[in-house]
């Protein structure tokens, strides 16, 4: 039994430092903890059956030793690190996992994980590539299968009512996270980038209700906080591949900048749109996960089946939300970040820079390799970028 004496940001720090501790406690109390890789597994369906979705992360500080034998060095280092931790037994407390075709290597990782790591339950969601209606309908069908396997695994019925209730809980979390992001709009922001990523990572480690309580405590704390982040000269937005460790953001905030907004998957991406409540809840979920979540893994056109193409129109349909963020959070510059070997983000970079240039928003591109030692050289780039904005 845990004594949850710490609250708000102190509690966040506690979870961030040892994120499996709470999950293991819950497991001892009889809860089923289900791991998920990337943000495409539909976690509402786990919550609906009283299971705890627990996001699988890597560890930038841990050298990869075991994954080399089954996933080559030329692929996404985050996925390699995650798999490495799995192979080392760090995720042994998980009852099972849900993984997806979020990207090609994520899919391969799912198969390798299943081959080498014993699990009582697994499901693989083959998320389509386009946002076409047929693709949405297809994803809904896949979620129906997901539901069947979950019911068989738990012996419980996953009714629409339960699912709707779970969606509402997760939507509440989305709303609370957006409220947190509102507090990044003032200058200086009321919550730093480092605190934000730690908070989001904590939310992805505990049941949704617990996460919502944490968020409410943090919101109350922030509104009266005395030790708000220091005001810096430059306000930045961070776009890109997964960042699951605060160290890169520490570098930004140790320089003369406040990180006030992000477009990453341990940040706004899973939270900035609510799941629509539809008569068949799977329909709303399919739409949300395929259409709402804006990861470059999905192919988007400015109009369905368009037969003429205009580059600027295409860019603005794909990226205008970024310039909206930049405007609303009064951003001076954008850091574009694509992990080495991340194809889906890598291909996007010149296009995104074309778009930002057209809007007069300055950007810098970083391509770290998910090791702690790579962070040092990044510091000079980040500081020089900030100097060009000053």
């Amino acid at each position, binding site marked *: 039994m845990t004594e949850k004496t710490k609250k708000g940001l102190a509690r966040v720090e506690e979870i961030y430092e040892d994120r499996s501790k709470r999950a293991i406690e819950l497991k001892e109390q009889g809860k089923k903890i289900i791991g998920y890789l990337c943000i495409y597994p539909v976690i509402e369906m786990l919550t609906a059956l009283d299971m705890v979705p627990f996001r699988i992360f890597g560890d930038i500080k841990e050298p990869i030793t075991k994954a*080399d*034998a089954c996933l080559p060095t030329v692929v996404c280092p985050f996925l390699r690190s995650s798999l490495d931790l799995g192979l080392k037994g760090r995720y042994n407390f998980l009852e099972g996992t849900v993984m997806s075709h979020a990207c090609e290597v994520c899919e*391969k990782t799912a*198969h390798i994980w299943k081959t080498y790591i014993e699990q009582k339950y697994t499901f693989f969601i083959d998320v389509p590539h386009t946002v076409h209606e047929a693709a949405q309908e297809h994803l809904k069908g896949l979620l129906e299968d997901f539901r069947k396997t979950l019911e068989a695994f738990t012996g419980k019925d996953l009714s629409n009512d339960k699912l709707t209730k779970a969606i509402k809980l997760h939507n509440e979390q989305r709303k609370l996270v957006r409220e947190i992001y509102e507090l990044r709009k003032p200058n200086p922001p009321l919550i730093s980038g480092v605190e934000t990523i730690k908070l989001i990572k904590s939310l992805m480690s505990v049941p949704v209700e617990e996460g919502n309580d944490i968020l409410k405590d943090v919101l109350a704390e922030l509104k009266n906080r005395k030790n708000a982040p220091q005001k810096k000269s430059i306000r930045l937005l961070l776009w890109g591949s997964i960042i699951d460790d605060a160290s890169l953001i520490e570098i930004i905030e140790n320089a003369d900048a406040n990180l006030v907004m992000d477009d990453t998957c341990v940040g706004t991406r899973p939270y900035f749109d609510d799941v629509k409540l539809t008569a068949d809840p799977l329909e709303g979920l399919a739409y949300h996960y395929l259409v709402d979540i804006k990861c470059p893994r999905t192919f988007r056109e400015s109009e369905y089946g368009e037969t003429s193409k205009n580059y600027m129109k295409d860019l603005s349909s794909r990226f205008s939300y970024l310039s909206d963020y930049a405007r609303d959070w009064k951003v001076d510059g954008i850091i574009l970040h694509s992990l080495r070997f991340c194809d889906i983000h890598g291909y996007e970079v010149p296009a995104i820079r074309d778009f930002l240039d057209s809007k007069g928003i300055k950007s810098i591109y970083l391509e770290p390799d998910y090791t702690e030692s790579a962070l040092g050289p990044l510091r000079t780039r980040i500081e020089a970028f900030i100097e060009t904005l000053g």
Partner: protein
Amino acid sequence: MADEKKKKAISRPKAMYPLRARIDEVYQNSIKAVQAGKPTGWCMVNWWEADPIIMAMGIEAVYPENYGAVCAAKGVAQKYLERSDSEGFPSHMCGYARNTIGYTARMNDLGRIPEEAPMGGMPKPLFLLGSGALCDTRFKWFQALGRYLDVPMWTVEMPQPGVREEMMPGAHDRNIKFMVKELRGFIGFLERLFGKKLDWAKLEEISNDIIEMNRIWHETNELRKARPSPMHSRDFWTCMTGCLYPAGDLKVLIKLYNDLYIELKERVDKKIGAIENEKYRMTFAELPPWHSLNIFDTLAERGWNFVVESWAYHPPKPIDLSKVSDPLERIARFTYQWLSGYYQNAMKAKEWWGFFAYPYMDFVKDYQCDGALLHPLITCRTATNHLYLIQDRLMQTMKVPSMIAEGDIVDLKLFDAVDVLRRAETFEESMDHYKEIRRKEGFEW
């Protein structure tokens, strides 16, 4: 060479030559047609999902993936790769993609086909066809070309489910239904773009020809299970192009594939192998080292017969499509069979390595392989991802060893043939050792 007159270690089927000549002729005709202004689309290899539709619409398909290999072979790829780097694309990306990006950026500057472009270059297309099959690059790359080409793009979907998920009741049909719907959307796109209707009778004929051609090609490869195996991987790679990139009069190709089948059947009946002393039966994954193919001749002299290879280049296992009336459904089922045809066996074996890795388990078992030569490519993750998994699982499940030899798709010098040959002898010891173990453990080979 002193022993010029020495018999070649690999005996190539006679029927291979006219087949290959026809493939080259069709390719040349296509280049001519494109240069003469025939409507052109740049297409990703799509495993017959979109090809019959494109052909029936009278559009010429150009495959930039292949053109990447051409540029690499002709030594101009480096120029395009460098251009892609200076355009700000990460240098770790797919070599073929970077080649096309660099080429297109340059064509864009010049307003015409660059003079150094081999084989007449790739003229500006009217549309781009991406594919969701196998790797993200195959639609991200074309989307990225939007920087240089104001032409529309379509991405064909292809489901790639997990083994158990695909075996759930209704899953297979749902995948087909999805593909068919998307193909209908694709036809609508082409009809709007070209302002003309699809000729359904033509589609019917072309898709049936493609299916028949692949059936013969599949049966031909089945013959290679014989001991000694009548055809070497080199001939597989030489002949596969006709099936993978269907073009021209398919009836002619069908006849030529059939001739090859007959010749190999004869070889099998007479117990004639592709190499004289078949000592080691080998499998190869994935893309061959195009520039160093003669390494296989040297290995053949040592008794290595490559009997099966590159699963993604293999035709689908035949299924009965005679009762499927909608040609689009027939195409979808055919293409999807290519990807999912191994799932039944994987499920039985309780092996979850996924559609990309598992086929090698069947290959090694069905073709009784003694070893695998695996070829990781530094800028093609898709052909590399699963190789270590294959190496480990082949050993764990069937006691078959693998040798790894690194290379690349555009940096051709990376493949070290001398080193492979140096290691071959030690690897033979390993293959002998495991052959003995398999015998003791009661394996069939």
